[in-house]
């Protein structure tokens, strides 16, 4: 905020000269220059902006926003295969729309979903050493009408070949490195903890999960839809010999026994997006 500092205002008994008056007027002008800050802060009000009559957007900051609710319920079983083809990932929420997404614009996508996991029992490969056993829910988009769905940038479908060595278990390792999980929500399957000299496996109670994805467009896109996907189970490990890139914390798509019957049920879900100008 500008401040006026009057250095020599007219005083008692002094003659009001043009010099004195012009000086204080000049001080006002210096304090409130005709620049971008003063025009922005003092010269503009709501009617000055060219707003969309339907939604009030001007396009200066917010370009587009929308949301979608899905109240259906779906139950997903864990993968049981050691090698490809794995049990396919499952669509839990599909939302089709048409949205221009231009270079350098910022897209923010937010989602939430009700979930509950279950199991008949806990066995290999889940044991006392596997602290993080999760279901990932991730975001995909469709960039052509009726075309293929792909994970959004910086996100994997957790079926990447991430290590071709023979450990652990003598098989190649599929999953995702942590630098490809920026549009993921992880849901825990089980709390594994030591209890009275034994190991307890406590299934996580029903919860609501949420996540977000933020991206600056590297090119012009036309988005035809967003959807949420789910698969499991994943176990964490440090990939010290990745096929691509440097060693990194990663998630391994594990084969589980069908008799353990690990499942996740996704109930109501909600997706919302905003597209904004970067500056």
């Amino acid at each position, binding site marked *: 905020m500008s401040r*006026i500092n009057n250095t020599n*205002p*007219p*005083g*008692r008994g002094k003659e*009001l000269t043009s010099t004195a008056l012009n000086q*204080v007027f000049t001080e*006002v002008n210096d304090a*409130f220059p*005709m620049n*971008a800050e*003063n025009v922005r*802060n*003092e*010269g*503009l*009000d709501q*009617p*000055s*902006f*060219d*707003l969309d009559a339907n939604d009030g957007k*001007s396009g*200066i*900051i917010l370009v587009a926003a929308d949301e979608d609710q899905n109240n259906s319920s779906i139950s997903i079983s864990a993968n049981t295969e050691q090698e490809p083809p794995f049990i396919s990932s499952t669509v839990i929420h599909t939302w089709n729309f048409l949205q221009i997404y231009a270079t350098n614009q*910022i897209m*923010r996508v937010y989602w939430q979903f009700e979930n509950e996991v279950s199991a008949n029992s806990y066995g290999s490969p889940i*044991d006392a050493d*596997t*602290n*993080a056993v*999760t279901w990932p829910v991730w975001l995909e988009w469709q960039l052509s009408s009726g075309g293929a769905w792909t994970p959004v940038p910086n996100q994997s479908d957790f079926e990447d070949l991430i290590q071709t060595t023979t450990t*652990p278990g003598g098989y190649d390792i599929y999953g995702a490195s*942590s*630098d490809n*999980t*920026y549009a*993921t*929500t*992880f849901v*825990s399957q089980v*709390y*594994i*903890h*030591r*209890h009275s000299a034994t190991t307890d496996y406590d299934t996580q109670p029903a919860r609501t*999960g*949420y*996540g*977000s994805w*933020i*991206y600056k467009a590297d090119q012009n896109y036309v988005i035809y839809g967003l959807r949420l996907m789910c698969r499991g189970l994943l176990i*964490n*490990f*440090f990939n010290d010999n990745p096929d691509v890139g440097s*060693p990194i*914390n990663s998630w391994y798509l594990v084969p589980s026994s069908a008799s353990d019957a690990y499942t996740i049920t996704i109930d109501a879900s909600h997706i919302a997006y905003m597209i*904004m100008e*970067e*500056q």
Partner: protein
Amino acid sequence: MKKWTEAYPRDNAIVDYKQFNQGYNAYKSSFNGGIDRTMTPSETFDKDIVKDKAFHYIVIKRRGDMDVPQTDSTTGTTLGDFRGLSYNTYGGGWLTVDEIDLTGMKDGMMHWEFSSHIYNNVYHSDDNPKSVSIRLLFDGLEVCSLYQVPDPVITFRMVCDFPYTASPNKATVQARSVSPSDRENDKCLFTLLSMQHLFIGRWR
């Protein structure tokens, strides 16, 4: 509609310096070259006629996994074990796990979203309940906190809005777990994965 204060001194109003200064003070804010909200044409301003950063600026940062000097590089590589901080080197207390220098922001209101996945080794939680706490500091002041998350893995987002001064600015993320008990393991204790930040500075 609000507009700048106006005054209408009449010819005989200035009888002494006090009255002049009172009238003048009330009149100051209208001496601005005629800029007046009531005079600005309606429905004029759109994206094409405003300069970049006229009203806001957005910064996105993807920062990877938590990496702190105390990270124990000897753990990890087996199934179920991340590489990260362990009790081999961690004794408790706040750690700075991420720090970002922001530029290009003017005085205004900041919207900061920080999201990540928490990994928390809860195996010995019966003996020593494990939790991860996080706090966000902007220019050294705490603006948001998240206390004692007990889950082994969870995705979270911290959101806060606060007034701030112009750049340069420093955004800091600090995290902590609990001090060790006499029954722990030497595996990764906790880490933050896929950390990402959204900063939206608005100055109007």
